[in-house]
């Protein structure tokens, strides 16, 4: 039994792409929401079906479901999001960078709300309040999100439907390395579940920056 466990751990660590969570290593409810979330990876379609619940990702503590892996240095993440359930207009699906699994951990995410509002939100230091940047709403739909981290700079891109990715801009963060990188889903209600289908997900390590500018 121990041998089997060890073998499974080795396989999981060396081939995350084919593990139970695809490109990610684990899935957790953050902030102990009263309902249970879940994450399923379909190797055939390479899609992730993530169900999250919880009051929100906001203020000084978060409740949501998080599918994550650990990374260091520079990287980019792309995901196409589709809300499969109705619910609060401010339910969220996001690409999230997070320092730890604590409910009040420092984080930064590129989120799409249920009503179609893209946002960049961050908690700069543990237990601090959340900052938000909210972009004009084009209405609900399928959105492709892209987040690129290079050094302390995080650049975000969004596309609605089949449109090309458009750069919204960039901000700075001090999350450092290692950092958790993944997909987050919150229902903005402790009594509701929110299911989001993530497709065309890619997580790519980028080379360290060349000489400083």
């Amino acid at each position, binding site marked *: 039994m121990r041998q089997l466990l060890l073998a499974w751990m080795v396989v999981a660590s060396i081939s995350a792409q084919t593990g139970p969570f695809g490109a990610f290593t684990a899935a957790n409810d953050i902030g102990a929401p009263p309902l249970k979330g879940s994450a399923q990876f379909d190797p055939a379609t390479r899609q992730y079906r993530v169900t999250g619940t919880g009051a929100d990702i906001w203020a000084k503590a978060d409740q949501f479901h998080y599918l994550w892996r650990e990374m260091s240095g520079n990287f980019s993440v792309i995901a196409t999001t589709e809300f499969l359930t109705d619910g609060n207009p401010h339910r969220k699906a996001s690409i999230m960078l997070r320092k730890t699994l604590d409910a009040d951990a420092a984080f930064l995410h590129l989120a799409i709300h249920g009503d179609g509002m893209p946002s960049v939100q961050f908690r*700069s230091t543990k237990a601090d309040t959340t900052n*938000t940047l909210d972009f004009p709403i084009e209405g609900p739909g399928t959105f492709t999100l892209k987040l690129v981290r290079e050094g302390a700079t995080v650049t975000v891109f969004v596309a609605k439907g089949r449109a090309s990715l458009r750069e919204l801009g960039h901000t700075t963060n001090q999350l450092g390395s290692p950092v958790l990188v993944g997909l987050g889903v919150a229902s903005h209600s402790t009594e509701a579940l929110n299911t989001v289908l993530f497709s065309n997900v890619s997580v790519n390590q980028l080379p360290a920056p060349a000489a400083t500018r």
Partner: protein
Amino acid sequence: MSRLGPRFVLVCMLSVSVSAQGGNLGIFATSGDVGSPANAGSTQFDAATNQYRITGSGANIWAKQDQFQFVWRELTGDFIATATLRFLGEGNEHRKAGIMVRQSLATDATYADVVIHGSGMPGLQWRSRQGEDTNTFDLPIDGPGTFALKMVRTGVKTYLYVGREGAAPKEIVHTEVAMTGPVLVGLFVCAHDAARSETVIFSDVSVEARPAAMARPQ
């Protein structure tokens, strides 16, 4: 002054508070340097052209400490402010000019601004609470030029609108920054270099206070 009598003074005060024009700082009440930069800044209002010529020095408006030239008026509640600006001369690519709402004149005060950098990079920057680090969101750069800026403040929400080279300002993004009671609203210039001074021309400047009832639902 005494020859004109109190009624004339009252009329002047009313016109300052309700619309443009007025004293030698146009629609604003006061100008000064925040954060004691080594080189003094200045603000001149040209009543003939309705333009403000603002010269500012200062290391930066960033992190936990700001240095810049500010011309402001006090108001309470929601407002819309506009300004069209262009930098004169050359300087640090991150020299800054724009519209700021600020809780106080302290160097580390809570604030939010809509800013154009010398490189032409627009941004929305804010310090959530006095003494904290600045937050920023910077937009893609189309290059230097003349920019029309608009800041809309509705409750804690602070909106950035930008238009470049004659385009009408377009809503880009908003953030939330809580302030209390009266706030200072005005124009700012920072050289991003304590040894330099930069001059910016502002035109089409307006500040319109709005009743809180007009707040946009969200």
